[in-house]
């Protein structure tokens, strides 16, 4: 450990003695956050939005800046040692190449902890002390700030009915009927039959899912939310967060909405809470209901009725349509978890950078890791985009490539903390849940898979580290190509 620490310490000394780099870091991070907070404080608007904006931009900027810094330092520290041949005097000493790499990683880990610690401490103070004190807050504003931003809330989406069996039954019947009617056409074209089956399956699935999200005038829908565990069941609140779309725009862009809530289906046992709201469409709305309406097992049923007065169909999209949120912790703990996830990302990049530096030159390694980083940040977008206008071969190729790219956007904590959402991957529980689904032969829900992506990325990172180590261990450090 002494030897690993010696390498780590040396790297830290090297970076901290780069005066221009250090000045740059201080200027960029500290000055940026201070100036931005000062500017926000001068501007108009609700304080919760100011804090949200500040958290979003400052944390994203810090993460991005430190990520770039980590990539450059990780690659430079190895490639410069090799290029300037300082590695000759190190690897000929009493230290293995593996320990040398571990020392470099440890150095980067401590440096990142140092830089991240300083910047997020500044951000925390500015977000929780400086900005809220900018003006005299009314109790409602303060409550809003504490309830929406400076908190940690978990979000639960409704259970969507599994339509696969229904779709299959319908498609089989449809295909059989088609084959009966147009036997001659499909007899020698099994590919055409398969294509027809796929198109029908997609269309029917879409239709059935839309049925679960669309509510025509005068009709209703009941959503079932599971596993809601509010911290204060007696006096606390759970929040209904929704965003409506419509098939035809109403005249004033507003919708009348009727709600009912209860631990069991309100239609069977009667709701414990009722209410009517008037809301603007395509905008996120949120209202609180008493936490005691949730059953001890964590079940909550939400009844929604689209009054006939609206005369348009209300649509609640699957991902953003409706969600129940409830407070499970404080902002400080959430902020710390955010830092941990930010730190994990920086460590990932450090490992990738070191691994690339063991066998590539500085510019090539930087280019490669930057491409991986950008692809990782855009991976959700890429997954969504490949459904459009791309052939099957291209889709499959992109999917295969993306398997080997860490999906940074899947576990980006900044969008969560800015909305006051609980930053937690709960890797263990989610893994167990996924195993339950898998052993029961059911499809693993997307939100669980999303949270398990970090595990896949960890495996990828370990693989990259192993490859880098094996190359470095067997590499001729004094090799010249003539």
């Amino acid at each position, binding site marked *: 450990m002494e030897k690993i620490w010696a390498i780590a310490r040396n790297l830290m000394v090297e970076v901290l003695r780069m005066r221009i780099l250090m000045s740059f870091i201080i200027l960029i991070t500290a000055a940026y956050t201070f100036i931005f907070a000062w500017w926000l404080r001068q501007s108009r608007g609700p304080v919760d939005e100011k804090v949200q904006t500040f958290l979003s931009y400052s944390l994203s900027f810090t993460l991005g800046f430190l990520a770039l810094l980590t990539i450059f330092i990780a690659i430079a520290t190895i490639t410069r040692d090799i290029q300037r041949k300082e590695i*000759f005097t190190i690897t000929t*000493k*009493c230290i293995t190449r593996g320990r040398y790499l571990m020392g470099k990683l440890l150095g980067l880990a401590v440096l990142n902890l140092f830089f991240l610690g300083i910047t997020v401490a500044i951000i925390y103070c500015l977000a929780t002390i400086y900005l809220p004190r900018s003006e005299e807050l009314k109790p409602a504003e303060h409550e809003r700030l504490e309830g929406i931003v400076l908190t940690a809330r978990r979000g639960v989406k409704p259970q969507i009915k599994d339509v696969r069996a229904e779709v299959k039954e319908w498609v089989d019947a449809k295909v059989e009927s088609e084959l009966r009617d147009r036997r001659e056409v499909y007899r020698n074209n099994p590919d055409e039959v398969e294509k027809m089956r796929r198109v029908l399956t997609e269309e029917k699935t879409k239709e059935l899912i839309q049925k679960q999200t669309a509510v025509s005038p005068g009709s209703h829908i009941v959503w079932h939310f599971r596993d809601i565990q509010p911290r204060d069941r007696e006096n606390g609140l759970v929040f209904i967060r929704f965003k409506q779309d419509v098939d035809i725009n109403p005249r004033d862009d507003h919708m009348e909405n009727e709600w009912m809530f209860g631990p069991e289906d309100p239609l069977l046992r009667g709701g414990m809470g009722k209410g009517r709201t008037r809301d603007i469409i395509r905008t996120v709305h949120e209202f609180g209901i008493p936490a005691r309406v949730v059953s001890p097992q964590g079940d909550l049923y939400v009844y929604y009725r689209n009054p006939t007065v609206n005369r348009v169909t209300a649509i609640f999209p699957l991902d953003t349509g409706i969600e129940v949120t409830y407070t499970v912790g404080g902002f400080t703990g959430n902020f710390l978890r955010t830092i941990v996830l930010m730190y994990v990302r920086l460590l990932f990049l450090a490992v990738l950078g070191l691994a690339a530096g063991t066998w590539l030159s500085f510019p090539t390694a930087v280019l490669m890791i930057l491409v991986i980083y950008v692809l990782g940040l855009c991976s959700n977008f890429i997954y969504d985009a490949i459904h459009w206008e791309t052939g099957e071969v291209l889709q499959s190729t992109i999917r295969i490539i993306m398997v080997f790219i860490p999906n940074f956007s899947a576990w980006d904590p900044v969008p969560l903390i800015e909305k006051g959402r609980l930053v937690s991957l709960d890797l263990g529980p989610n893994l167990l849940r996924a195993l339950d689904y898998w052993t029961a032969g059911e499809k693993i829900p997307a939100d669980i898979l999303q949270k398990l992506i970090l595990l896949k990325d960890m495996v990828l990172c370990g693989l990259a580290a192993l490859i880098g180590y094996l190359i470095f261990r067997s590499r001729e*450090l004094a090799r010249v190509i003539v």
Partner: protein
Amino acid sequence: MAKKQNNPIIQSAGLTKIFLDFWGHQRVVAVDNLDLEIQQGEVYGLLGPNGSGKSTTIKMLLGLLYPTRGWCRVLGRPPGNVKVNARIGYLPEESYLYPFLNARETLDFYGRLFGLSRPQRRQRTESLLDMVGLASVTRRSIGEYSKGMIRRIGLAQALINDPELLILDEPTAGLDPIGTRQIKDLILELGRRGKTVLLCSHLLADVEDVCDRICILYGGKIQSQGTVQEMLTCHQRTQIISPTLSPEAIAKIEYIIRAEAPMAGDQIEVSTPRERLEEVFLRIVSEAQTAEVETSGAMMGSGVSDFLGASTVQEDDSRAVIEQLVSTDEDYSGEIEMQEKAGIEAGPDLEPVAPDSVRQEVLEGLVDSSAIEPVIVETDSSEPVEKSLTTSSEPEELSGPEDESVDQSVIDNLLQNRKSSESSPAEKKDPDN
């Protein structure tokens, strides 16, 4: 110290390194079928012009390059082994140190890599800094050092672990004459203390002064190999060194020589020797230091660090043990040799001179020796003469024909001088010869 034979520290057989181009085609044969065997305690020199394969050989011995064919073993194990590295000190051709560290931090860093304890690191760092003459500039970062100063700190890092095997690649490159002289003295001293030194250089004078055996490489192949004595002794010529002689005495000597070697013709040369520039330089710098002239550069070192000795000896009392080992060595004592060289009489009960005072003694000796103004008489004997003045012949054989009218006292004087020079078997290592 007596060299332990049949205890090879470095061995190689058929060692070959071929560098490839980008496409994997074999392009340059850097080392070709090299067979080496370096024994414990030897100072071995790898000589050769640029590109002859010296550094490539060293890099293969250190595991920085892998042989294309053949094998090599260092301290009984394959190169690159961590346990082997713990016993090796390596000074690369250009030091390759971190420029942002200062001298003390550099040595501390390398000490940590060897797992040395904090007190050990501190003690050795101070000792080595003192030894290489950088004790006064430890706060400056290495990036601000001159090339020679970097070389000195590079040497110090190579010695931090008190290595059994010291591999020095062009150790005197970029050094001033003081540093060069100091490194040569250090190598000699380490050799006397039982260390094995592999020295790689194209500066022939350096190798000649310090090595027991040398190997001349060209085109990656061994062209010649043997002891320095074997390779450099010129058996066809004799050199006599004496204090200033009168023209009559010189004429008589010349007469005797012509009688002994009638075919010598105009190959007999009598001259007053010039001082070597190195000696003059060292004397002037020594005087400046005595006068305490200020400098921001390296100072003259303080001799060899005490801890550089047998690894089995406790460091605290290693100094006494080392001194004892050195002073009771059967072959010779370095200090005695140096004193004799300088013309200082070495009594039978001479006390061992502390290593850190050796340099000053040598310098003072050099100053004194310049006053002797020796005359060198050099002859070339193209044909073997039975009674020629060879180094291997006994003094009695040198007595000239009695019927010649030669001043016997002159010959006695000459013989007396030869006896004293023969009393030092380490003549080949004398940097002043």
